[in-house]
């Protein structure tokens, strides 16, 4: 399959990129690593007149440490993130989520900004134009019916990126540029929860950087993912867990503080499971008590998961695996 016709614009600076986005608003798509957009354009899911290639903008790339925390340029590749010593040491949950994304070669291309802005996925959507034409268009593209949801009036395509649950746990903030200037947005406010339009971003917005606050540095964290193959696949369910304790490594009598649990790939948006954070806060955590904490986290995480038949494996299994993965994530930290 070939790509639809478009012009490629290659700005060198953020200012130039914002200007081009404003000039062609509504008829332009940003391409970063290309691993999500290019296959989608081949399937004619996007047919923009202009493609804004931001690979040549140096100021969008790189990881900077400061007293406020860590600032990651949106164009930083996932491979660079998994190798960065400060991320390995202080934000380990992000590294753990990053190394599960697709395959090593795809992580050489894919960017953190791209992973955060990943389009939602569904068996009825991520198909060629010929397939969609013969099997029926859906709400997300060209049609007005959802084939997987009861009633069929709302799009339930699943948000299927691995790094956002880890970033939600870390309290990540986004730096977004637009003709109106710079704004800082908490990551959870980026997601609309609607499958057909998952991101609250205007077509004139450019995601420039992701900030990890210093307050989240050194959290214990783990990410567990369900997929069919051990490599390449998108998640079919994913759970990230982070917390802090006063005594360094988790010990028999440590107390869980600043607990966060986040899930992905089972809803149209990645979600913080606030009830799990609330109920686990202050609970003891160690070899003897991790099992109990894991059960509780799993039960509450699974309650927030609403998977439908948008991907391989049954929704029941994926929901059950959210429970299992949350428990496994906590047990791996005991």
């Amino acid at each position: 399959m070939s790509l639809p016709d478009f012009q490629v614009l290659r700005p060198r600076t953020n200012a130039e990129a914002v200007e081009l986005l404003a000039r062609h608003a509504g008829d332009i798509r940003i391409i970063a690593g290309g691993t999500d957009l290019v296959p989608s354009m081949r399937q004619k899911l996007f047919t923009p007149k202009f493609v804004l290639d931001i690979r040549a903008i140096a100021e969008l790339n790189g990881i900077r440490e400061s007293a406020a925390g860590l600032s990651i340029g949106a164009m930083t590749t996932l491979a660079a993130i998994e190798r960065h010593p400060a991320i390995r040491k202080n934000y380990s949950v992000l590294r753990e989520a990053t190394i599960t994304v697709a395959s090593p070669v795809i992580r050489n291309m894919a960017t953190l900004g791209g992973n955060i802005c990943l389009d939602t996925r569904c068996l009825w959507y991520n198909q060629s134009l010929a397939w969609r034409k013969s099997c029926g268009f859906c709400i997300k593209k060209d049609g007005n019916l959802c084939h997987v949801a009861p009633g069929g009036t709302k799009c339930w395509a699943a948000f299927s990126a691995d790094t956002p649950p880890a970033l939600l746990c870390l309290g990540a903030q986004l730096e977004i540029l637009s003709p109106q200037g710079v704004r800082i947005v908490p990551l959870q406010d980026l997601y609309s929860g609607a499958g057909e339009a998952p991101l609250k971003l205007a077509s004139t917005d450019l995601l420039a950087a992701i900030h990890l606050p210093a307050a989240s540095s050194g959290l214990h964290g783990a990410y567990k993912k369900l997929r069919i193959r051990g490599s390449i696949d998108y998640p079919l369910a994913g759970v990230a867990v982070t917390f802090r304790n006063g005594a360094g490594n988790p010990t028999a009598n440590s107390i869980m503080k600043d607990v966060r649990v986040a899930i992905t790939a089972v809803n149209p948006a990645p979600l913080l499971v606030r009830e799990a954070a609330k109920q686990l806060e202050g609970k003891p955590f160690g070899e003897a008590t991790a099992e109990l904490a894991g059960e509780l986290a799993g039960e509450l995480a699974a309650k927030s998961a609403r998977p439908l038949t948008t991907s391989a494996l049954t929704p029941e299994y994926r929901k059950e695996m959210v429970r299992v993965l949350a428990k496994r994530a906590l047990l791996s930290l005991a």
Partner: protein
Amino acid sequence: MSKILIMLNVNGRSHEIACEPNTLLLDCLRQDLGLTGSKRACDDSSCGACTVQIDGVPMLSCALLAVSCQGQRITTIEGVAEHGSLSALQKAYSDWGGSQCGYCTPGFMMTVNALLSETPDPTDEQIGAALSSNLCRCTGYVQMIQAIKAAIRAEQQGRAAKRA
């Protein structure tokens, strides 16, 4: 769609190419430059048969726009032979049955070549992790791992990899 003129550096040579702006690097290599070693297979950017190196880093040429690769060093399977003869890795793949139908082999070569440049003596785990980027439906990967280890030994001993 009107064509644009781009400059690509492929296997150490500069090429001036007139192509449409929506041309994938893979199609540019295969159709405009006649370098058909890189293969198109899955068409959804997952299988790795189209893997090339951009500035020494393996990437999927089916997910890159040709116009985006200007100013970078592109290396394809046609560029890995050493002084006109097969590299140790290529010889070992042939000797150990690392290649059967051969369709995925150029992609694997580019992935493994990058692994060995960065990590000349990889652990089994590192080899496995690198191979997880590419799909092969014939070999079951075992022969490839044997071939890669044989190539490493051969490089260390300064001779061609021979099957014992």
